[in-house]
């Protein structure tokens, strides 16, 4: 085990909103870190300073309303501030799916991800749709809109390097979107306990350059299917 394992730094991420998420994380990390140091520091200081000595009597004191008000409001302000900061990013990630995003359907079922592409005609439910198993392929710098579905139980689509996580609920079509900022091979995981094979339910997310993606898509579309 190396010291880097103890790191509180988030692993690198490659989506348009990942920086905002990480920023909020680091803000919270600093805020809570400072509070942590202060409170625990005060605690230890008091333990040392006011530990029992013969003949010393504790101060008879029932507290102070002023202090109560101060730290109540302080905490409230800090918490609500964090809440407000978070709201914007949350809306971007979960609500505002960008216009003209490339649409694909990801259907989770024990214990694999079925990824359906609309094919050349760009429409689902047509003959030229094609499906790949446990692989999501997407072009870089282009928003991808995943229609997340499930056929049996709850699963959770987890793309750590994209900072994306969303449960797949049978009977619902949940919009998930991301826009990768770098090409490469990334992880697709299942984060919701979905049965005996839960642990094996992983795949790869491949981010191509626009050209490579076109090539891959056409190749897939022509691939004879059973």
């Amino acid at each position: 085990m190396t010291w880097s394992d103890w790191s509180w730094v988030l692993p690198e991420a490659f989506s348009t909103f990942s920086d905002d998420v990480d920023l909020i994380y680091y803000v919270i990390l600093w805020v809570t870190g400072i509070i942590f140091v202060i409170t625990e520091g005060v605690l230890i200081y008091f333990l040392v300073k006011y530990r029992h000595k013969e003949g010393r009597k504790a101060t008879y004191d029932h507290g102070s309303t002023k202090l109560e008000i101060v730290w109540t409001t302080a905490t409230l302000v800090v918490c609500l501030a964090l809440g407000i900061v978070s709201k914007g990013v949350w809306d971007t990630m979960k609500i505002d799916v960008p216009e003209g995003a490339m649409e694909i359907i990801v259907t989770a079922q024990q214990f694999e991800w079925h990824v359906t592409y609309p094919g050349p005609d760009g429409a689902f439910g047509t003959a030229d749709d094609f499906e790949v198993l446990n692989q999501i392929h997407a072009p870089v710098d282009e928003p991808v809109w995943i229609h997340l579905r499930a056929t049996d139980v709850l699963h959770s689509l987890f793309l750590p390097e994209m900072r994306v996580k969303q449960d797949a609920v049978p009977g619902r079509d949940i919009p998930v979107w991301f826009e990768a900022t770098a090409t490469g091979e990334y992880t697709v995981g299942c984060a919701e306990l979905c049965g005996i094979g839960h642990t094996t339910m992983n795949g790869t997310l491949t981010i191509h350059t626009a050209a490579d993606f076109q090539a891959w898509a056409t190749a897939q579309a022509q691939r004879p299917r059973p």
Partner: protein
Amino acid sequence: MSTTEKDIASAVDAGGQHDHHEIPWIRKYVFATDHKMIAKQFMFVSLFFLVVGGALAGMMRFQLGFPGQPMPGAGILPDAMMAPTPDGAIMLPEFYNSLVTMHGTIMIFFAIMPLLVGLFGNLLIPLQIGAEDMAFPRLNMASFWLAVPAGMLMLASFAVEGGAAGAGWTSYAPLSTSGEWTGVYLGQQLWLVSLTILGFSSLVGAVNYITTVINMRAPGMTWFRIPLATWSLFVTAVLVLLAIPILAGALIMLLFDQTIGTGFFRSDVGGEPLLWQHLFWFFGHPEVYILILPAMGITSEVLSNRARKPIFGYHSMVLALISIGFLGWIVWGHHMFQSGMNPLLGTSFMISTMAIAVPSAIKTFNWLGTLWKADIHLDVPMLHALSFVSMFIIGGLSGIFMASTPVDIYIHDTYFIVAHLHYVLFGGSLFAIFAGITYWFPKMFGRMMNEPLGKVHFVLTFIFYNLVFFPMHNLGLQGMMRRIYDFTQYDFLQPLQPMNQFITLFAFALITTQVLFVINFFWSISKGEKAGNNPWHSNTLEWTVPSPPPHGNFAQMPTVFRGPYEYSSPESDDDFLPQTTPPRDGPGPSSGVPEPTPTPEGAEA
């Protein structure tokens, strides 16, 4: 007063036993109606379950530390759990899922909850408010004897075909609705039935606590003279009373889905999978506070006493308790941010969640304030109480990460959550339980627990505990999911192997350390040094009676003249001032209550 005859009547119906001639041992030790005995019964049973839960955790940790390697000595387990191979037995994923589920279920419902509510609720409430017993002693007995079969069923489910429940302690539908999906059939149903029975047990208990606290306070025990332990247990009882029935309803619907093929939570039969999560967490979040509020109360009690100083801001402590009790009902959605729930609700739930952080913070600051200019005695109960405070700070602060919805997207269902909840439930509740047991042990058994041994146990537990659970934050931040049988299946998680081994080794150390507590516990019951009525020089009523208190607790009705935390008061030469001490220039209790009428002994029920 025209209620009087009715009161008598009700007392008859309530059937409390207080005849002071000898009670047959079966009524005294087995089917006991004395709240102190029932408290002890709860304690022994749930300490047993604590051991079971720890053992399950140990097996889980082994699999995570040494994935797919044969577990020494596991050959004795049936092949349905451990696949036998030439070089030893290897854990099966279905058994791992059962371990995850049952560790959570047993620890929450059969260890922490009965320890906090069953043990301390029964022991403290009547003693601290000056009552002779609970309002309904027989119901109290029923509460315990419903919990026992529930526990038996839960354990039995390991032995049945298909193994124990494997859908997580949250038992999310639709996974939990069908054995075709979990691979668990009867086990899942036993899980549901067991929890339903336990629900009845908790309900009966809650009815008892609430009635007792409202109606049976000794003269002068006004609401704002009630010790914080009892206050917290009262709020807890209200949460239990209103939350458990929701769970019971959901459990029964889920049971129907499994057995007779209804489709409440199955979309393929027209139901709503998310409905289960809403019902479960509408119960589940109050449940979280059921598991922490009594711990807070115990901590306040011990802290104020061992610091020989009045609790800082008693009123704001009480108000914080109450506001937690209210706010606890409108934050359940923060368990469901990634569940597919309407994202707009996500925001409102985030705000309410941020709001509920405030009362917890208030309590923490008040505990720190209590230590300010205090006279701190660092003995075992105090050490545990202090570690409750410091661990609860960590658990509380790490909660803010999840409260922030975008950050939660990344850390949800990762080990960061596991770390957080263990900092609250182990670092929080369990340390408070250790504090409470060592603090009230003399009241329960008339003897002190061994101090040096207790200190050794504390130090080791504290160190190992942090070495086990703190790194889990980092695992989570690296993206390691929870409830995962073999994380090495993911390439990006393989570097975490050493960290997991590190955690596992110290987890074993942590579990082993608890042997010290068991030894200390049983040794002290018989050999511990005799404790007087009031070894801690405490103010609250339970310390005015002999240890252990006799049947019926108080020789004559105590009258309360002051608050519970009058330590180092200038009014007394000593550094404590019991609630029963009349004011020097005192007329009587401020509420001006009449003197109690003497109690005729041995009246027949």
